[in-house]
């Protein structure tokens, strides 16, 4: 295929739109890291798990399809708080390794339960109704640029999630507590803030967000499979680092950036090399700009 400039623009648009699912997952990673300085490796698994819960409950109770998008986030929140209790709550707070390892255990556990329950077979996931049918085309000197309606919806959803999170963190008492716990855990405790309660709330929040992300990602693919978990985990981590661990704005921007670049690499260099460049980019960021785009917004002493 000979590649013209418009193809690159189109690939960039496709990728940036798809990157909004990465951005949503990245948000959850960064939220938990910001609160606890720990990586929750089970996060993408609990997010996809949430989408499965939504699909399962809706099908079993024969609820209307949109119910998935309500039950999915609830499932995500529950799974996430379960991960908190099993993999973080009772572990020594200074032992980052143990928490990392335990959450990897959580990742295996959730992933394999999904495979077990579905026999590993991909399942049809409802698409986003009218949004998925919407497909916009802009004429551009007798070429067309296309935009997927459902992904535009996902993008708006991720911006909305970002704004809500920022509001929660910077304008509410809950946010104040979260920031206090993350910056000065001991002082916060002295002020009567319960660390575990605050962390649980952070995990629920991240989990609900993850459930939304899981549902939207599955809906935009139209198929759900346990195969989604590992790539989303890796992409989520990449996005979190490039955006700056703990940075909410950063996660969104990095999500869109990674999505866009990935898509252009795919167009220009083919799928076999695509991810090499994504990881090289990550490596470069880690070495030359370890704080990502925005460093840590929630500073820590």
């Amino acid at each position, binding site marked *: *295929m000979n590649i013209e400039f418009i*193809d690159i623009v*189109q*690939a960039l648009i*496709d*990728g940036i*739109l*798809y990157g909004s*699912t990465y951005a949503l997952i990245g948000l959850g990673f960064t939220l938990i890291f910001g609160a606890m300085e720990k990586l929750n490796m089970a996060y993408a698994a609990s997010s996809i798990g949430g989408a499965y819960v939504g699909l399962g409950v809706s099908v079993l109770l024969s609820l209307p399809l949109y119910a998935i998008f309500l039950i999915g986030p609830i499932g995500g929140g529950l799974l996430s708080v379960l991960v908190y209790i099993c993999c973080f709550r009772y572990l020594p707070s200074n032992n980052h390794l143990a928490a990392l390892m335990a959450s990897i255990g959580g990742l295996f556990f959730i992933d*394999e339960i999904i*495979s*077990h329950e579905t*026999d*590993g*077979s*991909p*399942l*049809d996931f409802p698409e986003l109704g009218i949004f*998925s049918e919407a*497909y916009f085309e802009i004429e551009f000197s007798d070429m067309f640029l*296309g935009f*997927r309606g459902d992904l535009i919806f996902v993008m708006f959803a991720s911006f909305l999630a970002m704004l809500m999170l920022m509001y929660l963190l910077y304008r509410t008492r809950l946010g104040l507590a979260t920031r206090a716990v993350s910056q000065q855990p001991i002082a916060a405790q002295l002020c009567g803030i319960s660390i575990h309660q605050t962390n649980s709330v952070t995990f629920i929040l991240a989990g609900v967000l993850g459930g939304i992300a899981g549902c939207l*990602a599955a809906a*935009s*693919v*139209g*198929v759900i*499979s*346990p*195969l*989604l978990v*590992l*790539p989303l985990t890796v992409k989520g981590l990449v996005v979190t680092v490039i955006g700056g661990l703990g940075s909410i704005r950063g996660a969104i921007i990095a999500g869109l950036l990674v*999505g866009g670049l990935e*898509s252009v690499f*795919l*167009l220009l260099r*083919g*799928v*076999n090399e695509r991810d090499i460049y994504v990881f090289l980019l990550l490596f470069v960021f880690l070495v030359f700009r370890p704080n990502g785009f925005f460093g840590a917004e929630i500073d820590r002493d």
Partner: protein
Amino acid sequence: MNKFIKGLAVSALAFSMSAGVALAEKTVLISGWGAQSGPLKSFGINSETILKAAVDKINADGGVKLKDGSMAKMVYEYYDSRCNAEEGIALARKTATTTNTLIAIGPTCSGVAAASFGVFQKKVDDAGDTGLQMPLFTNTAVRNGLAKISQWTFRNTPNEPDMYDKLFAWIAKTRPELKTVYGGTETDQGHSAGTYRIVIIPAAVRHGFEWSEGPIEGVTGKIGEGADNVQKASSNWLMADTSFSVQARAFKKSKADIFVISSHPFTTCGILKELARQKASPKLIVGLTSSSSAEVMKGCPKQAEGMIIPTSFAPVTPEAKAVADVAAANGASADLHSAAAWENVMIIKDVMETVGVSANGENLQADRRAIRDGLEALKTTAGLIGTVTRNQEEGEALKPYVFVHAKGGNWEVLHDPR
């Protein structure tokens, strides 16, 4: 949970047997392994279900006739190899050296097959080669050209070069208005990518279809020629990919009459859905053999509508229908991979009776050798949908096939050349 309890019961039973309870019955043991955990577990589950049904059938009919004329029951053990090469090898060694397994069936993943075939003795009677000496008869792993790795390994898997050759010949004849072809594959899976590059596209070229962007350098229509260029000229994806926008656009832009999608079910559905979203409408879609399974019909029945796939299994004969029904009754599905387990078990029974084996692993090594030689001597075998010709130079099969297409959420037979 059932399996868990069954497993506990089996091990308790094994323990009590080893604790000295003598076996009253004569048995011949076959073993099998395949992926029964992880995302590809359906392959192992389907295979085991059908293997069990076949063994049950044989035992219901009286069992296997031994060398001394008495009858023995056929028993089987099935293991989970997790689609992991190390485990596949461990299982090959386990069954060959710690059990009375006369012949094994497996594995399901081509990567595991490529690895575990390598630990078998390459040539029989080569005393300098310390590889395992137990016959292995594969039903699922289908990647091109594996069985010739060892003279102890055989396969009863579809012959893709032949099937795609006939498929494109048939399309050229029945749909003369179709001229051009474009496609893509899942490059990180040996089977889908290999078949695409080496088999499918050359077959299309051989029967006069043109690559939509002009001829691909080096592709003459001969199997395997210009394979690397085929992959470069196509729009590909990886097995766990979720976004297909760029690839689908390339498909659409190609304006080809025929789209070839050589991919396993998950990504087949992904690309089909994206093609539908972008309203790319080819006149025909050709899929990979492995996608003619229930998974695609669960994942994207609407978008797959009309996709044509050659397959070596469809419920077109009473025998095939019976196997499909017994699989469905046990919560599994019979497809071109798993249904071969039935044929394998039946072939094994016939070979055992022809060469004459002893029960309970007496004369184990001699019997294994006899079964191997017996298998190699077969020119044809009875298959579920017709006679299978064997190519014993390579240990492979030439199976009858039909062309199926997706219709109304099911795979229906479109053309039956048998």
